[in-house]
């Protein structure tokens, strides 16, 4: 179970906003409670000091029963929470509340705190002149009272804050749901479509933030559609182009079977074998093209010696050239180029093979590699029939063949060459050959 799977914008917004608000409130609460603590302390201390004054005013002498009663009455509501002692200057306990011990509550003058009977206490001790005597009044107050009050105040603040937090949470949930509705709509639109339906998504009322997504999706759809269309066309073209050679094979085979004499059979079998070679070559070319077909952005990065490759390919076509008495020449300087050796070999093979096939017997095919270091220019020049200027762009199309040619060809070679050139960031151009005759294929890397 990955984190990604559970990632939800809505939940995340809710958590972040609610957490943030809660944290703010907690800080505010802590701050306030410190403040409240301080204020309550001041208030209660003042009260404690005042209680001592009251005691002094009332007594400081041997109190009679009335006095005591009056005092206890006055302090009744603090029974558990308040104690007091009055000592004379000789250290005798003159007066004490019922809950106060016989021993001194504290030796410290002024305010102090310590553990006493029944919890934490705060004391106020004060020497005072009473009539002619000096007396020491000690008043103690249980700390719990303050804590309770502070606790009360904090809770009273906390409850509405919590209620507010809940309301805020609900509000954020609804608000995010409403704000994210356009995303859901896009998801629906994309989710509902069949794979082959690749038309653009309607931006509709989508907010600014969702638009880039829609545009990116639409762009993707366009590219996928283009690729699919290419694929479809390629398959259709391939099926179409395979039919004629297959029909030729089937026709020649039948002619051979039905032949009435040896020379007729011989002729048909010869053509059958020619047709087989042609079909095999066509299938080969189709597969090469199909492999090159996907619009891959991956540029080959290995360094390849174009001149060495050209040498190899020329060598392998030597026999073909000799058979037609064509002079096949290579003029190459070292030309390292970033590329894919296998693809570049196919490119060279196609160009040189084309040149050899279209050049009449006794002609000349010249392969040159020149240009600046790192940016070589490959030229394959023949003195064949050439291609009229108007047709030079069209011959790069798949299965394009020129009219009135008896030379075998799949119509795929230049298509493949162009693909490979594009892969290598090279430009291919067809020109007139030397002296206005023949054809020069120029590949500039």
């Amino acid at each position, binding site marked *: 179970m990955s984190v990604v799977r559970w990632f939800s914008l809505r939940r995340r917004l809710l958590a972040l906003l609610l957490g943030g608000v809660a944290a703010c409130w907690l800080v505010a609460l802590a701050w306030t409670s410190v403040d409240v603590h301080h204020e309550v302390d001041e208030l209660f201390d003042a009260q404690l000091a005042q209680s001592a004054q009251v005691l002094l005013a009332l007594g400081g002498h041997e109190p009679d029963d009335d006095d005591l009663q009056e005092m206890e009455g006055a302090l009744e509501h603090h029974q558990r929470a308040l104690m007091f002692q009055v000592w004379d200057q000789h250290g005798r306990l003159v007066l004490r509340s019922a809950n106060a011990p016989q021993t001194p509550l504290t030796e410290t003058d002024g305010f102090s705190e310590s553990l006493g009977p029944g919890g934490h206490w705060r004391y106020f001790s004060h020497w005072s002149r009473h009539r002619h005597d000096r007396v020491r009044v000690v008043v103690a107050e249980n700390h719990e009272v303050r804590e309770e009050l502070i606790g009360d105040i904090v809770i009273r603040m906390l409850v509405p804050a919590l209620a507010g937090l809940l309301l805020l949470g609900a509000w954020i949930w609804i608000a995010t749901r409403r704000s994210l509705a356009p995303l859901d709509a896009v998801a629906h639109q994309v989710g509902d479509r069949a794979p082959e339906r690749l038309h653009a998504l309607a931006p509709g009322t989508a907010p600014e933030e969702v638009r880039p997504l829609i545009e990116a999706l639409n762009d993707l759809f366009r590219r996928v559609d283009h690729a699919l269309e290419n694929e479809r066309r390629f398959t259709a073209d391939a099926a*179409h*182009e395979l*039919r*004629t*050679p*297959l*029909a*030729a*094979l*089937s*026709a*020649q085979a*039948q*002619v051979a079977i*039905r*032949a*009435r004499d040896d020379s*007729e059979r011989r*002729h*048909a079998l010869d*053509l059958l074998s*020619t*047709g087989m070679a*042609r079909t095999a070559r066509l299938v080969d070319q189709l597969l090469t093209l199909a492999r090159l077909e996907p619009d891959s952005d991956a540029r080959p990065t290995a360094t390849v010696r174009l001149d060495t490759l050209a040498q190899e390919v020329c060598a392998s076509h030597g026999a073909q050239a000799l058979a037609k008495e064509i002079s096949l020449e290579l003029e190459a300087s070292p030309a390292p180029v970033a590329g894919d050796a296998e693809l570049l070999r196919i490119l060279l093979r196609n160009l040189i093979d084309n040149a050899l096939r279209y050049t009449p017997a006794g002609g000349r095919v010249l392969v040159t590699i020149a240009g600046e270091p790192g940016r070589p220019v490959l030229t394959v020049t023949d003195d064949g029939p050439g291609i009229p200027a108007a047709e030079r762009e069209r011959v790069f199309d798949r299965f394009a*063949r*020129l*009219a*009135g040619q*008896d030379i*075998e060809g799949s119509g795929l070679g230049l298509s493949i060459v162009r693909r490979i050139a594009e892969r290598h960031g090279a430009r291919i151009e067809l020109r007139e050959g030397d002296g206005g005759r023949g054809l020069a294929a120029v590949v500039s890397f």
Partner: protein
Amino acid sequence: MRILLIEDDPVLGDGLAAGLRQSGFAVDWLKDGESALAALQSERFDLAVLDLGLPRLSGMEVLKRLRARGDATPVLILTARDATNDKIAGLDGGADDYLVKPVDLDELAARIRALLRRSSGRAEPVLRHGAVTLDPAGHWVELDGARIELSAREFAVLHALLANAGRVMTRAQLEQSIYGWSEEPDSNALEVHIHHLRRKFGADFIKTLRGVGYTIPKA
């Protein structure tokens, strides 16, 4: 029967021409639309086998222009295009049949015979004339129920005359129906074939119109 084959693929064209010749047709083979159109205008063919993807002038264009100038020569389209739309366009454009490559040579020959039958207004696959019966598909002839052995050329001449019974065939027309362009007829070969046919079917079976041609009168 003389057939014009229009196919730009050299291996297929050769195979189709050879196969149709084996089936007893005289075949002329052209490789582009323009020359096919010119040939159809200047000479008479019993049928044209037309590829659609042709250089210079597409097969559909050839068909369109052919029909536009009122030429009713039966046309059989033989193409790699198998889309229904292409078939509809081809047949509605004036083609008499539509075949998708690759095709069996026997089926192609059978369809050509069927088209030739229709174009000569017959429904029956065999030609009957009095005591003579000729089956173009089976390549046999009978006289009073007995098989008559004929050479391929003799058969072609008899076939042409029987298919056009009642009409006079000129010498040139008859020669065209037995020889393709590539085959040069001997100067008096036609007379020899007629002579052999008369010996086998009777002297009166084929009439000569001096200086015009030959005919088999309507039975």
